């Protein structure tokens, strides 16, 4: 039986049945009211009650059946499963219809159903987090079963090229075994992130100070949307800009100083990434600076400090936890940023302190490995998931620390944006 027919059977059974259930439930309630029985709820609520609780078993059984199917457990053939679910729905319709009397709390039951539905929606976001964790974790564990964890974390040579020979059954004595030492990759990631933060933090924080303390209301209203444009530019566009415009400029500039810079230098990718993060840091810092109570500032002004001194010695120290949290969120964005480094940084793991040389990052490696034509179970493919796991853990820790800091900050000053 084809999929289309199955869909037709399912929806063609479900919706008419629920519609009939609504009509039946409503009419029953109306007929009871006409007999001068005082009902608990409105007739239409009885209709919804019968309709929703007719649909519930049908949908539940089908969804469970489909899930079992994906785990290769075939309790019933799909046609039988849907027919069974539909007939169960019909039975529950008859049963519910019989059960309606003046004490049936249809409204409460319907609203309970809706609340359950809303609760179910919130589970999607939890499932997403666990989905990410699970999808990375299993493959990463498989990777660490093959390659040593210690080597991965502390090894300084990343040379996985021979992994695919082994995967093809051509590994042997004469081929050097693949090396998965990720230190150069992590070093590149942190280095580029560091450059990005050197650009983003001063510009972002000072912009935030200007916007919240110096700019007039109208200027603020005009500049905020412009900064939002900066935040809304896709990273692939930044990446193109970094590779086509910024990189050659840097090479020419350093050549005039007599220095040799790579076209895929860490500096170029870092600077552009920093610009990308400016609006994130600026808008979060703006929020926290605005959250500093007015009376604190007025107290400082009353004691004779001028505006700049008030900002430097009173406002900024009070806002510091929030600014640090904003910076941390920026760091987490920079660590996980992909397209800028894929386009503007290189593929070569390179352990160096020179920002003019090319470097690679975790995300570049993940993209390189997963876009190539590797067999899904080769060590090389699995290494992408191991790198992903490290990225996940690091960003998770940073995010949670910064979220807690911001929450605490907002609790202190009794406002709540996050």
């Amino acid at each position, binding site marked *: 039986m084809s999929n289309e027919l199955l869909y037709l059977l399912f929806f063609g059974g479900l919706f008419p049945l629920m519609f009939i259930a609504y009509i039946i439930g409503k009419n029953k309630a109306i007929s009871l009211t006409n007999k001068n029985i005082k009902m608990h709820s409105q007739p239409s609520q009885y209709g919804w009650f019968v309709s929703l609780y007719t649909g519930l078993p049908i949908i539940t059984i089908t969804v469970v059946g489909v899930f079992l199917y994906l785990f290769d457990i075939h309790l019933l053939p799909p046609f039988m499963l849907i027919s069974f679910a539909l007939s169960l729905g019909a039975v529950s319709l008859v049963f519910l219809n019989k059960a309606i009397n003046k004490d049936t709390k249809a409204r409460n039951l319907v*609203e309970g159903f809706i609340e359950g539905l809303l609760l179910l929606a919130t589970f999607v976001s939890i499932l997403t987090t666990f989905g990410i964790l699970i999808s990375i974790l299993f493959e990463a564990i498989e990777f660490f079963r093959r390659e040593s964890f210690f080597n991965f974390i502390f090894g300084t040579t990343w040379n996985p090229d021979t992994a695919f020979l082994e995967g093809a059954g051509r590994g042997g004595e004469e081929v050097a075994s693949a090396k998965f030492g990720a230190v150069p990759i992590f070093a590149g990631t942190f280095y580029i992130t560091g450059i990005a933060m050197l650009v983003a933090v001063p510009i972002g924080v000072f912009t935030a100070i*200007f916007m919240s303390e110096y700019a007039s209301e109208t200027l603020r209203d005009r500049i905020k949307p412009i900064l939002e444009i900066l935040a809304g530019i896709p990273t692939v566009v930044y990446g193109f800009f970094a590779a*086509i415009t910024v990189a050659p400029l840097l090479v020419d500039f350093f050549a005039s100083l007599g220095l040799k810079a790579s076209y895929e230098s860490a500096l170029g990718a870092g600077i552009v990434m920093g610009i990308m993060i400016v609006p994130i840091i600026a808008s979060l810092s703006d929020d926290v600076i605005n959250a500093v109570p007015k009376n604190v500032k007025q107290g400082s002004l009353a004691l004779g400090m001028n505006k700049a001194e008030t900002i430097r010695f009173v406002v900024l120290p009070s806002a510091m936890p929030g600014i640090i949290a904003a910076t941390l969120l920026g760091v987490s964005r920079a660590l996980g940023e992909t397209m800028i480094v894929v386009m503007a940084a290189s593929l070569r793991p390179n352990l160096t302190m020179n920002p003019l040389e090319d470097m690679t990052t975790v995300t570049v490696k993940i993209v390189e490995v997963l876009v190539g034509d590797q067999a899904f179970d080769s060590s090389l493919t699995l290494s992408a998931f191991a790198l992903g796991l490290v990225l996940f853990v690091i960003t998770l820790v940073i995010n949670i620390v910064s979220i807690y800091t911001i929450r605490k900050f907002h609790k202190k000053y009794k406002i709540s944006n996050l």
Partner: protein
Amino acid sequence: MEKNDDYFYIPQLKKRNRNGKIFKWVCASALISALFFLFIFLFDMVRQGYPAFTQAYIETEVTFNEDLKSNPYSAFDSDSFSIISRAWMRGLPRMMDEDPSLKGTEQKIWALANAEVDQYIKGHPHKLRDREQKIVDRMLEEGSIESKFNVIFFLTGDSKIPENAGFYSAIIGSLLTLLVTMTIAVPIGIMTAIYLEEFAPDNKFTQFIEININNLAAIPSILFGLLGLAIFIIFFGVPRSSPLVGGMTLALMSLPIIIVSSKAALKSVPATIRQAGFGLGLTRWQIVRDHVLPLSLPGMLTGSIIALAQAIGETAPLIIVGMIAFVPDAATNILEPATVMPAQIYTWSGMPERMYIEKTAAGILVLLTILLSMNGVAIYLRKKFHTKW
């Protein structure tokens, strides 16, 4: 009057005020440098992208006969063969099939010039040989080469022949993907926000969900790609490269943004409205459905548009789920392989031919125009429906 007689004279005051001014200018220069960067960036994109909106055409004579059908290249002498696009020549037999009256006639038509001629006319680096350059120069004088508006860019899909490559299939792919994202993320996001803001008790579990959502908003987007690959493609068997899998992945990504903005919209509805509802004997759901939700809907809409605008520019997770496949024809449904605008931009940016660079920049201009207009609509809605309680 001696300075020291001034009762209010403070010796450091001058220095302090000067420092204050310097501080103000440091702050202002930070803002100015951010704006300056934005300006340089936009200027550079326009400068690189606008040439792609024109394309050179050559007026040429074509004899439509049976030979043309079997071998379209044969209709041209070596001079025109070297400057006319191969892709255009290959399209001739189809042109003849569509219009049988052409058969047996000799027509003067504007043929698509190849990439090198186009680059030569635009004054960019090119690979034309001297002889070909002379032909093109002569034809330019005769007026039989013209730069026309580049319809091909908006009407065809990707191609390995630079002058024939267009953005159409990427635009359609993005639309389909966005449609999937919207139908999944917006309802679930709004439902989650309603639950958290209106129904959830304030306990550890709710706090856990809220922290989880904030964390999800900051998780690197590429990890969502890994989720899409491992769970949607490998476990559920959703076709690779399809707008369905791309849209589902992006939906999970934009969910936290929609939730956070919808929660803010719900929060901005004053508590008195709810209290009035309770006072009249409404249930919590009735208050939400009939009063709170309609009042906060514009805010939710604004937040959703901004989240979707972000999703449309997202690349990394889509690359992981395979949406950078070479797709010459636009997808017709959500299960066919497709490419999206940012992925097309990424693919073109890696091509060696010079013409792809300007196509990349032109693609960026199209993408930015769409993004800016989406954001513009969001800002307009926010202004229009803004209520001061």
